[in-house]
């Protein structure tokens, strides 16, 4: 049918959707009418228009009419029945079509209205819904136990064409995305794509113009360019193989750490490029040699402490000049320094917000602790895992967890009030202890800093090596705190039990965050409040302090992985096997990374080249952690929800840490007085003053009034910020309300799902009870044969309903299929008419097998020569005909079936089991051809509505059958 319709599609006159709609419908009609045009034209004339207009409620009535018509045409029963028997197949199809057509038609209508009203993205969604529905009713290519394949195929064709229509309406990019997301096999996708492209090109050839050509080629070029970029990006992607290995051995949750590390590395590369390009390069071009005092030489310890020699290089704030370089172009160093830092901070903020928002959108869902074991069963398996040992371990862990959760379920009810209270007390105590500890650490760091300032001479140039080494005291203590206190915190977990593992992790993370925030806060306070007031060229001193912190932190990270992971591995394997091999603590390690990154962000103002150090650090850390991981660690016992953890980490990185660093840098540049003797901002009240100075110089230049206006009216005006804030608040409020509304909607929809499920259950139950309550509709195979015999005997008086007979016949066929696929028990005492029914069914099946043969001028002929050529490629395309050999065998089988049928017709009054046998053999042969399981991607149409229709049809059949009694 598809190729059949393609002529309509490819005809440019049919590019309108409405026309397509009509075209398709008529073709589907003719498709049904075609096989027997000469046999019962009047009959078909009555029938054909009915099918598209039939409605569920009208089924009873139309069924009654068929009955009448049937009686009218078949005067002589049973002979008439036999003689008109060839009409049965189309009639049958029409019946089924009537009961089934409603859905595609309604569907078509909705599709048409949707397409005409809004060709939007929700169409893809709808299509997905359709496909999901198809999936939900019919299993992989085995739908025929409910409906004849012909009907299903029809439905599939309809859907396919709807799909093609929808795709045609989309833009190229959207179309590609939609095609990619189709739950079909690549071959089907290609087929759909080629149809869409064929239609497009035919349309284009109709209205070919230079413009269309041009735009097409441009878009094609862009697409090629885009995919080329993507490929290049993939080639450049760092550590792809390593990542795969890690995820294969340790799972996605551990991989989170490495992904995070890589992401931070990218940040730092960006910041390095910006800083180096706009601050360092111009300075070096202008003045390549650092002006180092003669008494300062490189002693080696500088690499650790960052003082001395480095102090006079471009590493720190102090090494930058405040001049405007006047070469071929003028370069205002002050402005460059300020704007570079500002723009970098803004870029970082934007990147963080974007990634955090994306992560929240896709990953953050309201935690639903109730669906834990379903989650463990169906969502927790990590398909990345490729390592045999890891998989074994994972299976073990899962088993343990499941057992635990089972026992927990039993335990939870037993928790008494006193136990609750004691647990609460433990929580309070541990929180209190951890907060006190964090505060104490902060205070001790502050006093240590003050002590250091007293101890060291003011003039750094005259420091001895020992004095220089003393500067390492503070970073050493800070890093030690950062290493030890978190370990201490994780000891709390031994007695501080939370109801869920996730909460335990969150508690640990929050405590660690507090600790790091206190320490950083105290350090910043010391720098801003004490150093900035007392020390000349204080920015460089702060820069050096940050340099030391970064370096020592790195050393401690290495030590940490040595002690934390290597030693505990040794202890766990050699000395105390009870402890076991350590796990890789993702949360702690990620927090260490966040801390390191915060140092780099704060330092960006004081030491613009700090990102270089950070790049090295992260790069080395990646390999270090990888080695430590593969040698010392085992995969985590409990697999937390990795995606959510990653979201939390990104959020943490943004909220306290980046915002903190940003506010410190902003405070420094707006409120603190830059040092008088060094750095680019010497002589200004604050760094921001550089902008004011620049604006002042602009006043002389004509044509720059707008810049001044912007500066005066926007940047310096509080009113502007006030208004902006108000607008933002308004937006926040509106979105808040929208969110609330959506939440309500979600709740309603969920209720609806529940309701629909109950409806479905109710209908299914009803169907089932109807089926079982009726004596003739039992599933017992023994009754089956007899029933058909009785049934066909009873019908000879001529008062019974034909449609019910048909439905019965269908049922019989379904159940026979069960038999046939087994040992084929051939009952000897089957009456002729049941044999006939069989024959008819066999015939129908044969037709189903190769539905395109329908359009043969005369179905009774057993010559299959006029097989229309387009059907072959189509069959191959759609893959519904099974293997490649099928088209060859199918006609043979069909032929046999038809011969059997003809013979059955000839032997009117016989109870010829021989005929029966033959028929069954024919059937069998077809079964073999056809009943290879269908393609898994051959989704079958229709959801519950189709089910309901099927049920209605069934019910109707039952009613009629009752009448027939």
């Amino acid at each position, binding site marked *: 049918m598809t190729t059949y319709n393609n002529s309509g599609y490819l005809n440019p006159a049919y590019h309108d959707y409405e026309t397509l709609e009509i075209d398709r419908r008529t073709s589907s009609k003719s498709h049904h009418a075609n096989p027997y045009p000469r046999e019962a034209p009047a009959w078909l004339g009555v029938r054909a228009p009915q099918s598209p207009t039939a409605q569920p409620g009208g089924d009873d009535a139309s069924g009654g009419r068929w009955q009448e018509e049937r009686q009218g045409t078949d005067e002589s029963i049973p002979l008439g029945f036999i003689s008109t028997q060839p009409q049965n197949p189309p009639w049958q199809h029409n019946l089924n079509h009537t009961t089934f057509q409603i859905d595609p038609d309604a569907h078509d209508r909705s599709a048409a209205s949707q397409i005409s009203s809004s060709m939007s993205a929700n169409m893809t969604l709808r299509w997905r819904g359709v496909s999901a529905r198809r999936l939900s009713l019919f299993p992989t290519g085995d739908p025929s136990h409910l409906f004849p394949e012909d009907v299903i195929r029809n439905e599939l064709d309809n859907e396919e064409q709807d799909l093609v229509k929808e795709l045609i309406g989309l833009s190229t990019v959207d179309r590609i995305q939609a095609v990619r997301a189709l739950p079909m096999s690549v071959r089907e996708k290609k087929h759909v794509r080629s149809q869409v492209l064929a239609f497009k090109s035919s349309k284009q050839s109709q209205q070919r113009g230079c413009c269309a050509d041009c735009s097409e080629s441009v878009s094609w070029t862009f697409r090629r360019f885009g995919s080329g970029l993507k490929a290049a990006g993939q080639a450049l992607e760092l550590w792809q193989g390593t990542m795969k290995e890690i995820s294969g051995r340790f799972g996605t949750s551990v991989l989170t750490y490495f992904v995070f590390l890589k992401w931070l590395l990218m940040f730092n590369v960006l910041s390095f490029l910006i800083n180096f390009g706009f601050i360092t390069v111009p300075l070096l071009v202008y003045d390549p040699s650092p002006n180092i005092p003669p008494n300062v030489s490189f002693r080696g310890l500088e690499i650790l402490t960052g003082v001395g020699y480095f102090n006079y290089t471009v590493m720190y704030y102090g090494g930058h000049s405040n001049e405007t370089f006047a070469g071929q172009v003028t370069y205002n160093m002050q402005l460059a320094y300020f704007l570079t830092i500002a723009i970098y901070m803004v870029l970082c903020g934007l990147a963080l917000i974007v990634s955090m928002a994306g992560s929240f959108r896709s990953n953050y869902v309201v935690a639903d602790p109730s669906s834990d074991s379903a989650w463990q069963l169906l969502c927790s398996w990590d398909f990345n895992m490729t390592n045999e040992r890891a998989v074994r371990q994972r299976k073990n862990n899962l088993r343990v967890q499941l057992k635990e959760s089972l026992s927990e379920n039993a335990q939870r009810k037993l928790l008494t009030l006193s136990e609750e209270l004691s647990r609460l007390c433990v929580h309070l105590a541990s929180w209190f202890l951890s907060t006190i500890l964090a505060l104490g650490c902060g205070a001790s760091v502050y006093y240590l800093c003050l002590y250091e300032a007293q101890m060291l001479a003011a003039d750094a140039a005259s420091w001895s090596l020992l004095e220089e080494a003393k500067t390492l005291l503070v970073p050493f203590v800070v890093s030690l705190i950062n290493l030890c206190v978190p370990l201490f915190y994780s000891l709390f977990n031994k007695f501080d039990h939370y109801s869920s593992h996730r909460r335990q992790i969150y508690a640990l993370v929050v405590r660690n965050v507090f600790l790091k925030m206190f320490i950083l806060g105290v350090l910043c306070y010391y720098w801003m409040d004490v150093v900035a007031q007392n020390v000349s060229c204080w920015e460089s001193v702060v820069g050096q302090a940050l340099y030391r912190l970064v370096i020592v932190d790195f050393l401690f990270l290495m030590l940490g992985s040595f002690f934390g992971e290597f030693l505990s591995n040794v202890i766990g394997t050699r000395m105390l096997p009870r402890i076991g091999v350590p796990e890789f603590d993702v949360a702690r390690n990620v927090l260490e990374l966040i801390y390191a990154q915060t140092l780099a962000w704060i330092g960006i103002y004081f030491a613009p080249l700090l990102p270089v150090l950070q790049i090295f650090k992260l790069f080395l850390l990646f390999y270090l952690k990888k080695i430590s991981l593969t040698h010392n660690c085992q995969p985590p016992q409990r697999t937390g929800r990795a995606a959510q953890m990653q979201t939390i980490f990104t959020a943490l990185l943004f909220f306290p840490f980046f915002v903190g660093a940003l506010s410190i840098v902003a405070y420094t540049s707006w409120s603190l007085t830059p040092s008088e003797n060094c750095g680019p901002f010497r002589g200004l009240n604050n760094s921001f003053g550089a902008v004011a100075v620049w604006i002042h110089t602009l006043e002389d230049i004509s044509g720059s009034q707008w810049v001044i206006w912007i500066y005066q009216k926007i940047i310096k005006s509080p009113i502007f910020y006030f208004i902006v804030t108000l607008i933002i608040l308004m937006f926040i409020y509106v979105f808040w309300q929208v969110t609330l509304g959506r939440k309500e909607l979600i709740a309603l929809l969920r209720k609806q799902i529940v309701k629909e499920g109950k409806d479905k259950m109710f209908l299914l139950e009803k169907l089932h009870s109807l089926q079982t309550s009726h004596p003739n509709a039992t599933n017992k195979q023994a009754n089956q044969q007899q029933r058909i015999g009785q049934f066909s005997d009873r019908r000879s008086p001529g008062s019974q309903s034909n449609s019910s007979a048909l439905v019965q016949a269908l049922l019989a066929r379904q159940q026979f299929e069960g038999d046939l696929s087994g040992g084929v028990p051939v009952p000897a005492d089957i009456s002729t008419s049941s044999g006939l029914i069989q024959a008819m069914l066999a015939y129908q099946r044969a037709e189903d097998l190769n539905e395109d043969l329908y359009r043969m001028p005369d179905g009774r002929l057993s010559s299959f020569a006029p097989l229309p050529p387009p059907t072959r490629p189509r069959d191959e395309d759609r893959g519904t005909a099974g293997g490649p050999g099928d088209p060859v065998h199918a006609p043979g089988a069909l032929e046999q079936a038809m011969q059997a049928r003809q013979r059955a017709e000839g032997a009117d009054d016989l109870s010829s089991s021989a005929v029966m046998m033959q028929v069954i053999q024919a059937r069998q042969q077809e079964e073999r051809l056809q009943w290879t399981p269908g393609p898994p*991607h051959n989704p079958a149409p229709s959801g519950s509505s189709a089910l309901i229709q099927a049920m209605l049809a069934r019910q109707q059949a039952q009613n009629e059958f009752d009448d027939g009694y």
Partner: protein
Amino acid sequence: MGNKQTTFTEEQLEAYQDCTYFTRKEILRLHSRYRELAPHLVPLDYTNSPDIRVPLTLIVTMPELKENPFRDRIVETFSEDGLGNLSFNDFVDMFSALCETSPRELKTIYAFKIYDFNRDNFICKEDLKKTLNKLTKGDLTSEEVALVCDKAIEEADLDGDSKLSFADFENMISKAPDFLSNFHIRI
């Protein structure tokens, strides 16, 4: 390119790029991986789209699938004949659906098919039991298995038919964001 033999025509690569989440380079890599599985069977030249299927037993020897407890089901689900014989199209299809960029809807549909062992369009208790046995090497007792399965169904079943329909499954997946990262095979 010179003397290098072409595996795919430009149009074929274009079609693959439009229909899957892979770049042309990845398609070629997939082809070489596919060919590695059965060098005598799979030709280098795919320009005339030969109809060749590699049987399940060979596919599951891939290191990416070898240890996966659901390997047979995955391959069966993506094979067009339902028996696990994968043509190259199916092969690409499989890794495209399982790659990082494929959307949640697609992954959900295929995950559902994979977990639906008996292909009745519901994840029923039997399916869950099979899943659980695959996940735990059958170490749990039958009562425990039954308990866990009952609990899982109870949690995820919205419509009360004591089996999980696609809607139930989708709803559950929507609450499990890491499903996306877990249902992912790096190729």
